[in-house]
């Protein structure tokens, strides 16, 4: 079927198989490879993107379900002039990543988290990101990064 999705503000329209997963559409059809596939079973959150502003796991959605909707991926957070989003900056400042594989998903889930709860406590960040796994950092610096991006003092 023909699937048309507004990806990071630009319409991508392509004929794809009905069974195409959203994550494959983003990576292969739209050519945006920031969104990673980790577990492929809705467990790790590496594939998290925003659907109409809300975090979803794109390995567990069909591209067809996003037809006519707006998707934001990690690429869409960075301004055209290359200026980083506050969360991207905070992950760098707070050393919120090591290998970086989980990072796009972590950051997109964090955008949604801060949207619902603009001044979260450290515990609320941990609870809000429970659907995202990181095998490297031990999470501590990820929590610090989200707290910093929310404009609060980072209390380690």
């Amino acid at each position, binding site marked *: *079927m023909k699937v048309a999705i507004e990806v990071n503000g630009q319409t991508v329209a392509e004929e794809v*198989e*009905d*069974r195409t*997963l959203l994550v*494959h559409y983003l990576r292969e059809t739209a050519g945006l490879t920031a969104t990673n596939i980790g577990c*492929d*079973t*809705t*467990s790790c*959150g590496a594939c*998290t993107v925003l*659907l109409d502003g*809300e*975090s*979803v*796991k794109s390995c*567990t*959605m*069909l591209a*067809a*379900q996003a037809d006519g909707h707006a998707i934001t991926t990690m690429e869409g957070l960075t301004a055209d002039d290359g200026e980083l989003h506050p969360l991207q900056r905070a992950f760098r400042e707070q050393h919120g990543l090591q290998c970086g594989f989980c990072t796009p998903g972590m950051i997109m*889930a964090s955008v*949604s*988290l801060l949207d619902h709860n603009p001044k979260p406590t450290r515990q609320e960040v941990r609870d*809000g*990101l*429970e*659907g*995202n796994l990181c095998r490297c950092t031990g999470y501590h610096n990820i929590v610090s990064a989200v707290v910093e991006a929310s404009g609060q003092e980072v209390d380690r």
Partner: protein
Amino acid sequence: MIPAQFSYRRASTVDEALSVLAEHGDDAKLLAGGHSLLPLMKLRLAAPEVLVDIAPIDELRYVRADDDGVAIGAMSRYHDLHRDTVLREHAPLLAHVAGSVGDQQVRHRGTVGGSIVHADPAADLPAAILASDGVLVARGPGGERRVPAAEFFLGPFTTPLEPDELVTEIRIPRQTGLGWGFEKFTRRAIDWAIVGVAAVGRSVGLINMAGTPLRARATEEALANGASVAEAAELAAEDTNPPDESHAPPDYRRHLARVLTARALDKAAVPA
């Protein structure tokens, strides 16, 4: 992992969905949030020939209070329910339970109708709806029928719903002012409950203590006869048939049911 081939259809009204179901019978499946069905399809444990996406049916996304109680549209997502002020006031147990399902991303997609019809004995909302004396409204080619939650869960992933029927609404008697408690014991953050307990007033629903959600009848009767919470909770595992898994054998689950029932009832003893 990619699902087997199917043909994708979209319905934006209940009537449209029913007519696609009528056309394709057993070969078609409704797709709501897709957070149970798509994982099964990716594992090729399910392979419907036609998928009918009912997400565009906005007429099924609501929470309304009326004289009888609260009516919840089947396509309401967990995230909607968790934040809904009407639900928080008149059926706060359900609003809270909806906020405890899976993780943030899952709650943005999963729907109450999908959770009920999927009928996973480890699911959260079905037990809470059972404890709330909820009633499910279904529509099919023959019109509308109402099925009490107590008659809806027949076995693991088994309900009396026909393949050409669609659940449209969940009705809950008003719980305004009643105390409630929800206890969910999990192994890791986003896991399903090993055992869970949803209590409202003196009603108790058990998660994952049998092939279906259950009412803790012995506990409820003891409470009605004047037993203390501690005494009544001791009976929570009576007439249950908990699953056996290496990390959680039946005896361990029975113990959890007693402990979690006492905790949930202690919370429910405090009026909301």
